[in-house]
């Protein structure tokens, strides 16, 4: 292979970069799968059990597989519902990411073979292609995941992994757009010779078009619809160039977002178009640029003063908890402070003494405000991206009463929560 070609190949597929973007994308893949499949579980009698109205996709599966899956007794279907939900949740939170992704995908295939009537759409097939690529490696579990917390490495987000999966996912979406555009003007597509967008806006109320603002306006202007259609096809055809050329990349990502928002607000199309594709477009953001941005933010936070987490360095559970918080602290907003290193903790904050520091964790913000116990967790939920999912729970009415009791119970029984000999007699708590 000529040296230049080899260099290009290495740069495109064999390079090593942070898998931070891929980890973020995993969450959207999981959400998309969940939003698409889980609603079909609310009507198992209609959709999957022996009483269901079923459709089979024989172009996707082989007849023997369809036949085999169709033999499923109802108890097995219930089992697979639980199986799917379990591994979908594991994949969402990134627990054993690769394995849970594969098992969730098996669940997807099972229900698709059992009945393609509700979940089987063209966008579902695209999602399965994406899911297949995601399952090839476990890099998507490197961050924003329980796996990352289990590793406990605060700088795991910087860890570099082969870039080929992210590159193939970029190629997939770029060429999905390209072929979608190509089919509209060749084969049996009629976007050049006719005016499909005009028909779409004029569909009857039962049709696929939603009642959106300005629908009447567009529905009465065939020429405008035609040129809008040509515009859409042009952008779709140019998508690979616009997305891969660095100069137009930001514009193309923005266009893609706009297009998908437009799609979901005007047409009854599966939410896969909204939840998966925009997130997949973000995979075009160079991980090195993301790392550089994080580095800058960490430096800014360091210079402007970080919040201090005051903890008991002699308590294994406390050290473990602080380590997890620091792993989640992507932008470096926290600084850990073992109160044993300070003879007089009141120098950290006037309200602190050794007894108080020993009883629970404390967070002192740069402006001097102090939080303790449960309220640290509440505060950090707004600051650490990995804790965002807990915001609705910790701010739920009444959680300010229940939360501190739960925290205190955990603090009191923390010797039960780990295997360190240091706290097994509960001496860590006073």
């Amino acid at each position, binding site marked *: 292979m000529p040296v230049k070609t080899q260099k290009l190949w290495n740069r495109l597929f064999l390079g090593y970069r942070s898998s931070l973007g891929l980890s973020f994308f995993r969450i959207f893949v999981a959400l998309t799968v969940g939003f698409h499949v889980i609603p079909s579980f609310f009507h198992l009698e209609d959709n999957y059990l022996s009483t269901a109205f*079923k459709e089979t996709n024989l172009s996707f599966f082989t007849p023997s597989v369809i036949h085999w899956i169709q033999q499923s007794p109802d108890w097995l279907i219930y089992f697979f519902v639980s199986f799917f939900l379990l591994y979908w949740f594991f994949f969402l939170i990134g627990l054993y990411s690769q394995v849970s992704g594969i098992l969730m995908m098996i669940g997807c295939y099972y229900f698709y073979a059992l009945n393609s009537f509700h979940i089987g759409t063209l966008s579902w097939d695209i999602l399965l292609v994406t899911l*297949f690529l995601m399952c090839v490696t476990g890099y998507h579990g490197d961050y924003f995941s329980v796996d990352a917390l289990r590793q406990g490495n605060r700088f795991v987000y910087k860890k570099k992994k082969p870039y080929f999966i992210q590159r193939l996912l970029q190629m997939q979406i770029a060429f999905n757009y390209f*072929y979608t555009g190509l*089919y509209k003007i060749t084969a049996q597509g009629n976007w050049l010779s006719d005016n499909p967008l005009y028909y779409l806006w004029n569909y009857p109320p039962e049709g696929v078009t939603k009642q959106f603002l300005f629908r009447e306006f567009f529905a009465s202007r065939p020429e405008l619809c035609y040129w809008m259609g040509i515009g859409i096809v042009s952008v779709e055809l140019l998508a690979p160039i616009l997305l891969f050329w660095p100069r137009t990349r930001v514009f193309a990502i923005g266009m893609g977002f706009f297009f998908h928002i437009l799609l979901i607000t005007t047409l009854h199309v599966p939410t896969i178009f909204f939840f998966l594709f925009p997130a997949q477009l973000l995979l075009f953001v160079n991980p090195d640029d993301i790392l550089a941005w994080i580095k800058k933010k960490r430096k800014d936070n360091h210079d402007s003063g970080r919040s201090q987490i005051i903890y008991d360095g002699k308590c294994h559970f406390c050290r473990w908890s602080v380590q997890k918080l620091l792993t989640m602290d992507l932008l470096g907003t926290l600084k850990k402070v073992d109160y044993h290193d300070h003879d007089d903790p009141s120098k950290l904050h006037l309200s602190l003494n050794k007894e108080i520091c020993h009883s629970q964790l404390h967070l002192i913000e740069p402006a001097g405000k102090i939080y303790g116990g449960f309220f640290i967790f509440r505060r950090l939920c707004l600051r650490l991206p990995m804790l965002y999912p807990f915001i609705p729970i910790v701010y739920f009415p009444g959680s300010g009463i229940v939360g501190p009791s739960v925290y205190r119970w955990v603090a009191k029984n923390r010797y039960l929560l780990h295997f360190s000999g240091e706290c097994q007699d509960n001496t860590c708590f006073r």
Partner: protein
Amino acid sequence: MRWGSRAKNIWISLFVVVWTLVFHYESVRFFYLNPFFHRELPKVKFLFPPAGWIMFFNLDESYGMAEVYGVKKGRPELIDPHEIFATQAIGYDNIHRNVLSSVLYPQRKEDFCRFLKRKFPFYDGFLVAAVYYPSIIKEPAKKLYRVVYQCP
């Protein structure tokens, strides 16, 4: 370069090449390669749609859908399709995506009738009708009806 890294790179390169070929093959197989080779080329099973990425690629001014009527004491009553297929998708309405139209195939009669009888036991029978708008532009109000099959 160490042997381990070299072997890894070889595997990655092989995967990339095979995947890229398969992806583009499946993207063009049905509408471009089949006509070119004058035969139906094999499809990669368990992945990829049957005919490439053909979202909204061909739409004309006609529109067709299905309507289901429950018959009680000889009188047909239109059944809301959302009651027939009650699964609520998130962010869109599957009924508007015309999922009901697939019941119009006569070979689906037996399954669909069994399904309707279970869901709506209070009807004596059912009519499944094809509804056709010949032109949503020129005659938007003109709807043609044809009973495709009846469930006794």
